[in-house]
């Protein structure tokens, strides 16, 4: 007996891709449940935009800029769309390829089931392992932006930005616009994009590239010193970050600092795709896994036996599928929903245009902190405080995969469930293997719940576990309950 469907479509994530997918499905007359971790719609890019539009200061809105304000129209259309059951502050801890979703909110939890699921969980910042990256006062560029958008909080004291990527430029530009002059910018990329990056410039990339050049000029005019191609970044201090040091052009630099803002580009979140058993491919250049999907985002199952049947009713959209930013994500969300409903969708020219700058950005700002293999004293697993040296020592005893490494060292077993350490632990494993060609790193085996859930919530689970419901139906059918001798 298959449990009844709760809706035609479940969308996970209320960023640009998720909102656009939900709107498209609702317009087609489909019922949609949208689950999102945050209290209001917008994702990270349009975080708290409704509130800031109504009561944020003019100075804040000006600094956050057009790219932020542009999201308001999408949010309003999402709010006014019919047939969307929007559930904010809801985390998702399980996903199955047949359309079953495990959710938790406010101490309660349950299962939902839809004909199709669209994963629009966005990107996360690529973990940035270097000595001292666990010290209080070291935060990601995204974290600083979140505090700005949600609480109008501005860094104070001595601020240093380090790393690479468009977001780092954006945050530096916004800080200067709000009157905070960073002590210095320490970039891992080179000062001028090389030929390998320039040859990837496309006509559609003109506006974003010009905007980037403008930001860079403004930072120079503000007198913020910039260093390029830095290596050996170290954050030091006892109870918090007190200083940062790095090597640039053969010289060591040291700077006192109260807040070190780091960024090493963004990668797709893959936790739910992985627990659902979807195919993920390792990208060596990106040091990350990407889901295997078609143009419309339809995912496929990983090779191997499938616990929940061979069909896959999951699509992946937005930055969780392919890094491309908010505008591309919104276009893709619509396509993903259309394809899920009608079975096919066309790639609109607007999506191609929105993605035009990405190849240049990827080439000009390659992973920096993740470029070289981490030294032995660098913490890899933040939760269990395991250094690269400790993991290498364990690997040298004959460990061959992440599951064994997790079992022996606890790497990836902490509260974050491997979100910060998996890719770097996998790279440590790869360096001791001499496979030719190098074998792509394999992930841990993932099991639900992928986010913590209380035993109380589990005990009161609503919406029967569909797999267990099927087993119990089978048991009743064959009469095992009646004929059993009670010794099972």
């Amino acid at each position: 007996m298959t449990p009844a469907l709760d809706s035609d479509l479940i969308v996970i994530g209320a960023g640009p891709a998720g909102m656009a997918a939900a709107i498209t499905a609702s317009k087609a007359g489909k019922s949609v449940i949208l689950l999102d971790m945050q209290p209001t719609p917008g994702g990270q890019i349009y975080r708290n935009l409704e509130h800031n539009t109504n009561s944020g200061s003019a100075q804040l809105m000006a600094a956050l800029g057009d790219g932020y304000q542009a999201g308001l129209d999408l949010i309003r259309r999402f709010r006014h769309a019919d047939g969307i059951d929007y559930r904010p502050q809801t985390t998702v801890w399980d996903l199955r390829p047949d359309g079953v979703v495990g959710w938790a909110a406010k101490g309660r939890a349950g299962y939902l089931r839809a004909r199709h699921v669209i994963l629009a969980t966005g990107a996360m910042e690529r973990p940035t392992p270097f000595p001292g990256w666990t010290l209080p006062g070291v935060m990601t560029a995204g974290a600083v932006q979140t505090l700005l958008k949600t609480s109008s909080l501005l860094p104070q004291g001595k601020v240093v930005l380090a790393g690479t990527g468009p977001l780092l430029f954006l945050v530096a530009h916004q800080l200067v616009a709000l009157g905070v002059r960073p002590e210095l910018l320490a970039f891992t990329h080179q000062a001028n994009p090389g030929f390998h990056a320039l040859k990837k410039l496309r006509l559609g990339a003109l506006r974003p590239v010009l905007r980037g050049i403008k930001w860079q000029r403004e930072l120079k005019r503000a007198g913020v010193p910039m260093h390029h191609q830095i290596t050996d970044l170290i954050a030091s201090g006892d109870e918090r970050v007190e200083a940062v040091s790095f090597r640039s052009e053969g010289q060591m630099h040291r700077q006192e600092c109260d807040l070190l803002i780091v960024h090493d580009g963004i990668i797709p979140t893959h936790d739910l795709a992985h627990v659902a058993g979807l195919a993920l491919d390792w990208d060596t250049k990106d040091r990350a896994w990407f889901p295997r999907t078609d143009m419309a985002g339809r995912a496929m199952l990983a090779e191997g036996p499938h616990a929940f049947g061979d069909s896959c009713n999951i699509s992946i959209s937005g930055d969780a599928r392919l890094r491309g930013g908010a505008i591309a994500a919104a276009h893709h969300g619509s396509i993903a929903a259309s394809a899920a409903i009608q079975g096919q969708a066309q790639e609109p020219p607007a999506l191609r245009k929105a993605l035009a700058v990405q190849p240049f950005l990827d080439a000009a700002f390659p992973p920096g902190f993740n470029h070289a293999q981490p030294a032995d004293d660098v913490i890899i697993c933040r939760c269990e405080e395991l250094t690269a040296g400790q993991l290498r020592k364990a690997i040298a005893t004959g460990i061959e995969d992440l599951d064994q490494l997790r079992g022996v060292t606890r790497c990836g077993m902490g509260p974050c469930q491997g979100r910060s350490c998996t890719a770097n632990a996998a790279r440590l494993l790869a360096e001791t293997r001499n496979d030719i060609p190098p074998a792509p790193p394999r992930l841990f085996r993932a099991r639900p719940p992928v986010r913590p859930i209380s035993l109380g919530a589990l005990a009161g689970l609503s919406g029967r576990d569909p797999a267990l419901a099927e087993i119990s139906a089978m048991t009743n059918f064959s009469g095992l309950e009646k004929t059993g001798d009670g010794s099972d």
Partner: protein
Amino acid sequence: MFAPLTSITPDLTIYFQGYAIPACHGETVAAALLRAGVRPFRKTPVSGAPRMPFCMIGHCFECLVDIDETPDQQACLTLVADGMQVMPSQKENL
């Protein structure tokens, strides 16, 4: 580390280790604690190292605190409520 861009008008109070912290409806526990200058949020169960929010979007689990006696809540995902009692995460090393 952080200061409000413009003057704020707190409309509720939360408590960190018993100390009153003014907060605004709709913001997260992590934001309220950072504005108040709370440092650190917790010490790790492994070595006792101090930790603070790192990613602010629910991935890193560095901002774990105990809220109203429920252990290990993500301060960056939890909205403030009047009278909320917040304590550093008390987890033992198992």
